[in-house]
């Protein structure tokens, strides 16, 4: 039996409460609020207490999907990544960088947001990048 707790930050709202995710044999089984957090001081709301429940939901996407004959079909990473990079390039070549747009995410990490806007600005060459700050 392998039981671990991992300190992290909640993903459900802008409060940014800290808690430990309880992991038993590779399954996330619960949350324990962090008492020394300057934000939540050992407390959590109902969304925080239950945040572990969606992580390993059966409905999670586990394989890339590509639309073939109108249907989203499971494919390998190589196929999905090659398709995406190739189509982005074709569209940029045919219609220019400003014909592409990117929605980054208030859900992913700072590092990922940074990388995504860098890709959009430096690789594609457009400032068409936004996210749901206004929603």
């Amino acid at each position: 039996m392998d039981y671990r707790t991992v300190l992290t930050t909640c993903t459900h709202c802008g409060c940014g409460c800290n808690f430990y995710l309880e992991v038993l044999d590779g399954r996330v089984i619960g949350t324990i609020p962090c008492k020394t957090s300057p934000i939540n001081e050992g407390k959590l709301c109902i969304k925080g207490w239950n945040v572990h429940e969606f992580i390993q939901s059966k409905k999670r996407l586990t394989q890339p999907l590509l639309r073939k004959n109108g249907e989203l079909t499971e494919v390998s990473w190589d196929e999905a990544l090659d398709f995406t990079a190739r189509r982005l390039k074709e569209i940029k070549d045919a219609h220019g960088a400003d014909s592409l747009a990117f929605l980054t995410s208030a859900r992913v990490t700072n590092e990922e947001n940074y990388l995504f806007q860098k890709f959009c600005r430096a690789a594609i060459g457009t400032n068409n990048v936004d996210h749901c700050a206004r929603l």
Partner: protein
Amino acid sequence: MAGLAASFGSGAMTNSIAELEDSDCIFIIGSNTTSSHPLVATRIFRAKQKGARLIVADPRRIQLATMADVHVRHNLGTDVALLNGMMHVILKEGWHNQGFIDERTEGFEDLKKVLDAYTPEKAAEITGVSADDIIKMAEYYAKAKAGSIVYCMGITQHTTGVDNVKTLANLSMITGHIGRESTGVNPLRGQNNVQGACDMGGLPNVYPAYLAVTDPNNQKKFESAWNAKLSDKVGLTVSEMMSGLSHGQLKALYILGENPMVSDPDTAHVEKALKAAELLVVQDIFLTPTAQLAHVVLPGASFAEKDGTFSNTERRVMRVRKAIDPVGNARPDWEIIKEISNRFGYPMEYETPEEIMKEISSVTPSYGGITYQRLEGEGLQWPCPTTDHPGTRFLHKDKFVRGKGLFYAIEFKPPAEVVDEEFPFWFTTGRVFAHYHTGTMTRNCPTLDSEIHEGFLEVNPGDAEGLGLRHGDAVSVSSRRGQMTAKTMVTDRVDKGVVFMPFHFIESSANVLTNTALDPVCKIPELKVCAVKLEKVA
């Protein structure tokens, strides 16, 4: 955020969450704090316990309203009139802070001229709030030692969103409730890392740290850091992307972890736009309604499956740590972006998120002193320019980021859509305690799903009686943009003539009805106000 940046020079919560509990007057407007930011509400409860006065301005009788010293239900979209009325009273009674105004601000004379007309009686006429209540609100806030303003999307999701925010900034400056402990103007950010996404340059007009893309010096700096030629043209906002797709100028959209089919106004318009794309890439953890329309779907990893950082609403950068491996063949989003960039022909060579953070701190002045090692413990609040800087608890201490605080003289403007004979009810939207945004995560938590399983429409008992609606009855709701059916919840949380619906539920999606009319400056849609009609479903 555009509003606060214009008034103060920085678009972020001015003070910290913990400071709220030592404020002696908290003015909450357009934030259902107990539902949407429960751990901020805890501090408000504590402040109340310590004797603080609470002022709540919200069209709904939200939980905080039940413990408020004064709760007003102003008509939807009349915030500027309400706040101008308060300021009129403050100036007339001499409760303003002339020393602060003289020393720290500019533009006061113009504001004064505009405020002249907003007598409590005139404000009462526009807002539906009694003149006595407006005077009481003005007195409580102005006479406090440390007054705090807390707001959320109830202020910003309007065609006058920027005006509303600038008016709150005006209120804080005429009373000097800014730049000190436990005061300030505090926008609560809705998404867990919306602050971070903005800080990192996830916006069409700025690079990381809000450096304008139109400034040649910034362009040069990032061209050399990224070794690429950059565009000096401001990009498109979300709403402009949607119309760009519909009209054909835009050919491709790559969406990372967002769900515009549920979160954006006028769903029919969004669906038409997404279907028009020659290429729609969606990277997400679930097959959302948006992902179902994609040409290619890339499975990302959840927050529990990767390392990184989030920045919360009080500018605090904190660690996210990997607890388990990604489920199935999902991959961390940063790895997916890196792979695509490499295949596209722009090499990226990061091995870990920590390496990316090193690059971030080297190009982002406000994150200059942030390293993973220093984030152990409580995290760091930006601005944190150097590795020996302790971080910043509250902003604008001795001077505003822009130098002097700038007053804007703002007149009240009505919302883009108002009720009429055909659509006689005011319609507004928001969140419920058990769910978050489009419900992609929370509706997949069985415990949360069983708390609140479906959407509903809050209707005042008087209106329900007039329409022959009982609790639980199906009601058809239509606006100029769409029609949907929901269950009736009869409650006096809403006033007569106003109905409310949470927007988490795709089956009865509030955004089928909402208006795409935008604020002219920051392009936020007016999600909080539109006109609808109700009919009982036979």
